[in-house]
């Protein structure tokens, strides 16, 4: 077979497989287009939208919303601090170039202690993988059982799950530094922790700080959502209002959430600028700081402010309350932890696990597909590249510009409301079940992907596009023939990344009533079937790990020589710019 026909054959295979997968997913996700056209569901959604107005803007309720927002921020701050406390030691231990391979390791004598250390290092990496793969909402369920309802459970859930995310990123960053200075310090007789302090950390610091700030942004969003399972904060208030049909309270609460998210992003962007977190080495990123306050004084001020904020938040979350950690909590947690072992691995139970797993997979596929459609529909008009340097500046140009702004706003709204809240809305429309989950996932994913698509198209080099325009091509033709071939690789890799994340999220969406493995997990927890809960959690972990592997394989086959999607590395590297992690929002 000649090469072109073989590749065509392969492509036909891939397309056929994809279509079959989508049809199967649509079946298991119980997609019912009729439900969307049903006048009955229209009426329900209409009633909901109608109920949103007038919003409850009474002073007393605004105070409730503000307090809830403050609590959410506190949970996020303390959660982030604890997650760093988890991530830094585990991340250092998991750094292969310090403990497992490379010149440093090879020049050390082989001793039992060294062997133990390198196996501990491998173990730390595996542990980080586990912490990361189990979704934060599932961790929240665990801690709600363990320490009871309330913000402390939310904080611990954030600490564990974002500790896993950050720890893995840290380890990757630490491994990626220039190794030669490490060898030089090693030759002076420095210990490994000293080498870390003086050769690894200075090199990795800008990226590590940028990622930590980004992780804080994620924690704020996550803290809002964790409220839904009883961790307090905005999510809790929203769930309460939904349950009591007080739709008028939804608008101020969601408004508070949006303001909160926006403020966090602005704050972390400002902090990043001050700390020069993204300054590439060698570009004098530190120059600016030195001209300002004396270095030590400004550092002390910043440290003091951060410490005060963290302390206030810790108090606000209730960590210092006498009953937060009394002996009964510890014994309850121990009892719960013991209850999880051994996980229920009887064939009879494993058979019942199969159905929710398939359903969760279906939800994630349909949700991502819907997201791709919405993202493309809104993302293409949101691209500025083919609107901006139109020489005519006529009416058509103005319309395109206005359309671009509108689409950007719509995308950011879709994106800002978490999937779990979308589920609550879609449950009203199509009822409890996987279809509501898939719709919720799709709408949020559409917001994320649309922004990424638009950004990617805008980053395509303008020169070839100008060439095409000179031939008289229309904007759509330019997009198809100029921008698409350039951006294709990035777009596919973003979409695959998002699918992996959606798989994780679809378990979470299930917890809020979207069906699949999430609802099964929630039910076993409610009923106190802890061994089964452990099995389901392990299943989630395996599912997520498998998707990561499949996603990598697909990305590799589409983009064999891609420089930004490296094997086994889930996250794009942050370089000089703000981390391109908006894919995760």
């Amino acid at each position: 077979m000649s090469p072109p026909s073989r590749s065509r054959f392969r492509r036909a295979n891939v397309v056929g497989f994809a279509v079959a997968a989508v049809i199967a997913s649509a079946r298991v996700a119980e997609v019912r287009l009729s439900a969307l056209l049903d006048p009955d569901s229209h009426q329900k959604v209409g009633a909901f939208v109608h109920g949103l107005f007038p919003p409850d803007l009474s002073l007393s309720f605004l105070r409730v919303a503000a307090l809830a927002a403050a609590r959410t921020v506190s949970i996020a701050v303390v959660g982030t601090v604890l997650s760093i406390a988890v991530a830094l030691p585990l991340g250092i231990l998991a750094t292969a170039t310090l403990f497992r391979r490379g010149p440093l390791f090879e020049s050390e004598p082989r001793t039992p202690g060294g062997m133990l250390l390198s196996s501990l290092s491998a173990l730390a990496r595996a542990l980080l993988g586990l912490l990361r793969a189990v979704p934060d909402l599932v961790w929240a369920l665990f801690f709600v059982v363990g320490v009871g309802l309330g913000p402390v459970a939310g904080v611990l859930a954030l600490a564990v799950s974002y500790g896993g995310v950050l720890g893995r990123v840290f380890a990757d960053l630490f491994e990626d530094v220039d190794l030669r200075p490490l060898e030089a310090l090693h030759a002076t007789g420095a210990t490994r922790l000293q080498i870390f302090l003086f050769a690894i950390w200075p090199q990795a610091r800008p990226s590590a700080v940028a990622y930590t700030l980004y992780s804080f942004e994620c924690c704020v969003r996550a803290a809002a959502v964790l409220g839904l399972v009883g961790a307090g904060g905005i999510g809790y208030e929203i769930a309460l209002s939904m349950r009591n049909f007080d739709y008028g309270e939804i608008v101020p609460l969601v408004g508070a959430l949006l303001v909160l998210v926006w403020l966090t992003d602005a704050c972390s962007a400002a902090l990043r600028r001050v700390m020069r977190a993204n300054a590439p080495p060698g570009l004098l990123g530190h120059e600016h700081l030195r001209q300002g306050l004396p270095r030590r004084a400004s550092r002390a001020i910043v440290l003091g402010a951060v410490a005060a904020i963290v302390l206030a938040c810790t108090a606000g979350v209730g960590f210092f309350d006498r009953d937060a950690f009394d002996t009964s909590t510890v014994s309850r947690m121990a009892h719960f932890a013991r209850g999880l072992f051994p996980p229920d691995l009887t064939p009879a139970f494993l058979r019942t696990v199969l159905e929710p797993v398939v359903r969760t997979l279906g939800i994630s596929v349909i949700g991502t597909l819907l997201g791709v459609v919405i993202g493309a529909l809104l993302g293409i008009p949101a691209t500025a590249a083919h609107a901006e340097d139109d020489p005519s500046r006529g009416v058509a140009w103005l319309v395109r510009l206005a359309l671009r702004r509108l689409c950007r706003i719509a995308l950011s709204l879709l994106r800002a409301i978490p999937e779990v809240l979308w589920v609550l809305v879609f449950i009203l429309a199509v009822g409890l079940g996987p279809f509501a989950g898939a719709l919720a996932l799709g709408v949020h994913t559409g917001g994320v992907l649309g922004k990424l698509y638009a950004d990617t198209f805008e980053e395509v080099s303008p020169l070839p596009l100008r060439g095409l325009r000179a031939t008289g091509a229309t904007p759509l033709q330019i997009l198809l023939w100029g921008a698409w071939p350039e951006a294709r690789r990035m777009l596919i890799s973003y979409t695959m990344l998002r699918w992996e994340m959606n798989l994780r999220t679809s378990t979470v969406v299930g917890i809020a009533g979207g069906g699949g493995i999430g609802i099964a997990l929630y039910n076993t927890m409610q009923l106190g079937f802890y061994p089964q809960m452990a099995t389901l959690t392990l299943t989630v972990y395996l599912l997520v790990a498998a998707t990561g592997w499949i996603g990598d394989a697909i990305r590799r086959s589409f983009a064999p020589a891609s420089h930004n999607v490296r094997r086994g590395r889930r996250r794009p590297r942050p370089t000089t710019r703000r981390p391109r992690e908006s894919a995760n929002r």
Partner: protein
Amino acid sequence: MIYRLDAVGKVYPSRRGGVTSLAGVGFDIAKGERVAVIGPSGAGKTTLFRLLNGTLRPSSGTLRFHNEDVAAFSPRQARAMRRRIGTIHQQSLLVPSLTVLENTLCGALGAWSLLHAVRTAFSPAGADTQRAMAALAQVGLVDKRDARADELSGGQQQRVAIARLVMQAPEVILADEPFAALDPALTDAIAQLLLGLAGTGRTLVCTLHDVERALALFPRVIGLRGGRVAFDMPSNAISQGMLDELYRGAPGEPADAAPSPSAREPAVAF
């Protein structure tokens, strides 16, 4: 005796059984000696260098440092040995994002506890800073103390590496091709610095490409060829014939023109 090598061999593992880099190398180096190691590329100079600085272990034979067998060292002892040996590389291996002063301070890491190191990372103690500044004064870079290492030129970076060495205050200085990346004028300046440091009772071992400089600056020269010691004698006893032999083409191949001792860069056969 600082170093005592007895039939030292080094075999790097490879898919086909291993590549022999050194075989049966034996010599002593006494305290205060200045030794140059010369030889064609692939002769095993860098391997020998890494054995001497304790970042590699011999696969056969014994390497003694202060009459103690290096192979039997625990990680802690190996670290203590490295602390007593200062290293200069071909390119200075500074930490690019640290300042010149911070890079200089790094030299003393081996002598510090972890706690002291953590403290130094945030705000170095006055005494340490003074010592580091004295080291920088010795290499003439006091005014660059707050510059980042990656802003410096190659020669300045090499000088910071020497300041780091001064800070470390080792009893042995090992230099691996310290002049390879420098132009002739800088080479003289750096060579003076290194020899000046070695003049204070320290031992200096230097691998060199530059035969002329090796003969002129070092009283003792060891010639390596194919992983074996070809000669080891005072530099004034070395004849042109011995150098021709050292730099001759690989066995079985037609001989290349051997460099005269005055050639700046020896012609290398492989």
